[in-house]
């Protein structure tokens, strides 16, 4: 199976292990990711907060390239996904916006999580599991833009989504219930209001701990970066050592698949997940 792949800007930088684990997992289940040729940044919050035309036209250029390639478009970033789905709605809705870029809406736009959770890959995923993640107690963190607003994402259960929970269970882990599945990590305020980022992520970390989880699983580079890189300083401010590894869901898939690259991916984390996994005899 071959799809167009839109990595997004952070996959070459802060979210490198996400990109590496995606590649490994897709290889294992025979998915060929064809990087979208000449892709550009989706514009993220900075476009939609300042210029409506820009917020539609920047993602539209990528959608147009993907449509010409006649393959579905998959992206691992929740923010890119949200901008693509918003642009799709604006360009193909009842009163379409004209940004002088052709796009008819003939391809599907998917987030990597919803793509890999498709029924057609269930068998291949099951077949690849060599190291079931027994004893891993994880909370699923979907964040905002993977599911909201439902008018754009068409998420079935936007207040209590389940795809990631099902996947964790399938990998042999325990998906722990917590009420903050879709709470906000502050994303776009990362440089401008660090105090707000601290407060929001502190709530998430506290809740994950209270729920009895020993790690958090994400599907977005911004969520992962906020929870991982800021964790030590948030804890220091409160006299707590959280020590909660923050995984990309594809890293856990790679781990369950017995992939050799896991050590390299986990070495990129600020909160090193290896001691936890060693204690659970998964490494």
């Amino acid at each position, binding site marked *: 199976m071959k799809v167009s792949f839109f990595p997004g*800007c952070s996959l070459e930088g802060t979210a490198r292990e996400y990109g590496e684990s995606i590649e490994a997992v897709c290889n294992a289940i025979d998915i060929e990711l064809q990087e979208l040729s000449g892709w*550009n940044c989706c514009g993220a919050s900075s476009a939609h907060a*300042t210029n409506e035309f820009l917020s539609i*036209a920047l993602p539209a250029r990528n959608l147009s390239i993907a449509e010409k390639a006649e393959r579905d478009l998959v992206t691992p970033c929740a923010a890119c996904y949200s901008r693509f789905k918003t642009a799709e709605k604006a360009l193909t809705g009842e009163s379409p916006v004209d940004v*002088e870029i052709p796009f008819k809406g003939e391809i599907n736009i998917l987030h990597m999580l919803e793509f890999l959770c498709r029924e057609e890959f269930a068998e291949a995923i099951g077949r690849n599991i060599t190291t079931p993640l027994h004893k891993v107690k994880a909370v699923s963190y979907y964040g905002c833009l993977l599911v909201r607003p439902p008018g754009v994402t068409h998420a079935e259960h936007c207040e209590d989504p389940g795809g990631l929970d099902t996947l964790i269970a399938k990998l042999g882990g325990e998906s722990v219930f917590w009420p903050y599945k879709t709470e906000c990590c502050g994303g776009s305020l990362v440089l401008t209001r660090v105090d707000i980022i601290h407060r929001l992520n502190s709530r998430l970390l506290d809740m994950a701990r209270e729920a009895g989880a020993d790690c958090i699983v994400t599907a977005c580079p911004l969520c992962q970066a906020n929870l991982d890189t800021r964790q030590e300083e948030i804890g220091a401010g409160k006299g707590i050592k959280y020590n909660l590894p923050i995984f990309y869901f594809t890293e856990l898939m790679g781990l369950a698949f017995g992939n050799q690259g896991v050590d390299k991916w986990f070495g990129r984390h600020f909160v090193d997940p290896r001691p936890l996994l060693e204690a659970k005899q998964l490494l």
Partner: protein
Amino acid sequence: MAVQGERTFRDVVIESVGEEIFDCYQCYKCSAGCPISFDMDLLPHQIIRSVVFNQKEKALSSKTIWICASCETCTTRCPNEIDIAKVMDVLRQIQVESGGEAKEPRVPVFHQAFLDSIKKTGRVHELTMIRNYTQKSGDLKEKLKSGEWKNDVKLGMKMFLRGKLKVMSPKCEGVKEVRKIFKQAAEHKKK
């Protein structure tokens, strides 16, 4: 009062977000679910009311429109299907175009640094973007004074050692087309 036939502030907002805004019955659901409400000067339901009452100054001079994280919780939960997150966007867009000082000036400086990075290479280069933002926002000056810069350097080093800082600028073959989009965008203003 607006002259007859002249578009008011409220008209400009409605053009983007629709007439549903008049259905707001101030149930506070948006404000109750907002994760950033603790630091807002006007709560989301008050922003909606200020638009309905055509109170341009009040809405645009708020801190709220800049610290809203666009998490879309308000839009998702509004019983009257008002796209509240989009109202916040439109208000920011109007404020940026007016060129006036924002109540949280660093946020639009960040957006500009982010967009400048896209305009230059077609993609965001995290390192260049952060450098531009810290210089232009006054963040650098402040951190040099307070000694906070040491923590940033430490964080940067940690990122670098983990292979998470891309040093080289990205290359996108479509950069000319991206620049054309920016040129067109400058002509599409709210007014």
